[in-house]
């Protein structure tokens, strides 16, 4: 899957500069970087929510893109109906709700869920469909360790089964180490370093990456 080079400028300031890149089906790519490094902007540009400076297609039009925003939204209906917004596949819905441990909440109003439950429901909703590229913006930020772990396993299984490219925006280096095949490190809107996680997370070449890893103490 080819991503064309693009950039994004806000009020005269370039906040993201993305080079052309190739992504491989079935792989998980973790996008890491400090706050304001352009991770979420990258996710929104790829999802087609933000227009790029080039105002042209970044991805081939036949590529289906799924996206889960940082702030999970619960539509004013019950959990089951929220899940069915993704697709009407009953068997898949039941499996996902079971895997995400929200089966018992199926008939509950989504507005009454906790933050972690809402995030699990939103994830289940987007995983109901099969996308060529799935972008998740900090999907486990509101989850505890146990649900984070089961979510990570579910994501790895989803990629393996569907062959989808997963772009995982995360603040957690540990999460990137656990689930990613490759890592993109962003610094001030620029892709500073990318490659296999063994390389970027354990023996980075660039000074910014080294400082970032040292600062986070992981």
């Amino acid at each position, binding site marked *: 899957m080819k991503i064309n080079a693009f950039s994004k400028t806000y009020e005269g300031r370039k906040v993201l500069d993305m080079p052309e890149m190739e992504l491989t089906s079935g792989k998980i790519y973790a996008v890491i970087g400090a706050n304001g490094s352009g991770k979420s902007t990258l996710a*929104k540009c790829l*999802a*087609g*929510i933000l227009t790029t400076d080039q105002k042209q297609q970044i991805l081939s039009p036949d590529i*289906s*893109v*799924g*996206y*889960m*925003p940082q*702030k*999970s*939204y619960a*539509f*004013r*209906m019950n959990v089951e109906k929220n899940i069915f*917004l*993704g697709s009407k596949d009953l068997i898949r819905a039941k499996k996902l709700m079971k895997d995400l441990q929200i089966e018992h909440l199926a008939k509950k109003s989504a*507005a*009454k869920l906790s933050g972690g439950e809402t995030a699990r429901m*939103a994830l289940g*909703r*987007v995983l109901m*469909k099969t*996308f060529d590229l799935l*972008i998740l913006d900090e999907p486990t930020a509101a989850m505890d360790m146990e649900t984070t772990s089961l979510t990570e396993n579910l994501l790895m299984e989803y990629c393996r089964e569907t062959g989808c490219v997963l772009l995982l925006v995360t603040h957690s280096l540990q999460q990137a180490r656990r689930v990613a095949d490759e890592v993109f490190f962003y610094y001030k809107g620029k892709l500073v370093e990318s490659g296999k996680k063994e390389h970027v997370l354990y023996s980075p070449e660039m000074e910014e990456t080294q400082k970032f890893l040292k600062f986070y103490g992981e």
Partner: protein
Amino acid sequence: MQSALAKAVALILSADAELCNILSVTAKMSISSSLIALILGVPIGIWLGSSRFRGQSILLIINRTLMGMPPVVCGLIFYMLFSGVGPFGKWKWLFSVRIMILAQVVLILPIVVGNMETYVTGIAQTVKETAKGLGLSGWKTFFLLMNECVYQICSTYLLAFARSIAEVGAVSMVGGAIAWKTNVMTTAIMQYTNRGNFSLGIALGLILMTISLVVNILISVMQRRINR
């Protein structure tokens, strides 16, 4: 005062013919105008709250200005437009319920638009991003947004109805407060008070306050549901 109050209660209980006529004209005017304003205003409010385009802020300023338009100014404009010498004088709408409804729609519409726009602005971006992320169509996204606004729409309707039923300036100017024809509760209260007929005025006042109480309870219930 006590005897006037007793007479007022008696008028209500005996379903006085004039009182019933005033209530019927009031209901016709208030329900029609608030419904028309709702049908027109909700899509406009959703559109203004969920889109970003050049000139949007100007439209919002105009709408906010119209929200505070004094009813007598609205009445004056319609009076001039529909009086014998006005451009629409030949339609002979002046002093009819029709022109009262029209004037009310103009007064209420900005309130409906403003109320919906404020609410939709708060949720539109997240709803649109979520829907886009799920690969949903534009129509499906619009219906989802409408579904998110259900309680807000109900609450806005009640607000519009309350404004319409309590309005006096514009309706008295364009309706003329003609007995058995265009006299509504508010104009009748003024009329009967001026004539010293306090009992009918109090009876109408009691009904108006009861309606206002019920409407406000309903608005409060709706607001609680919205915030949940």
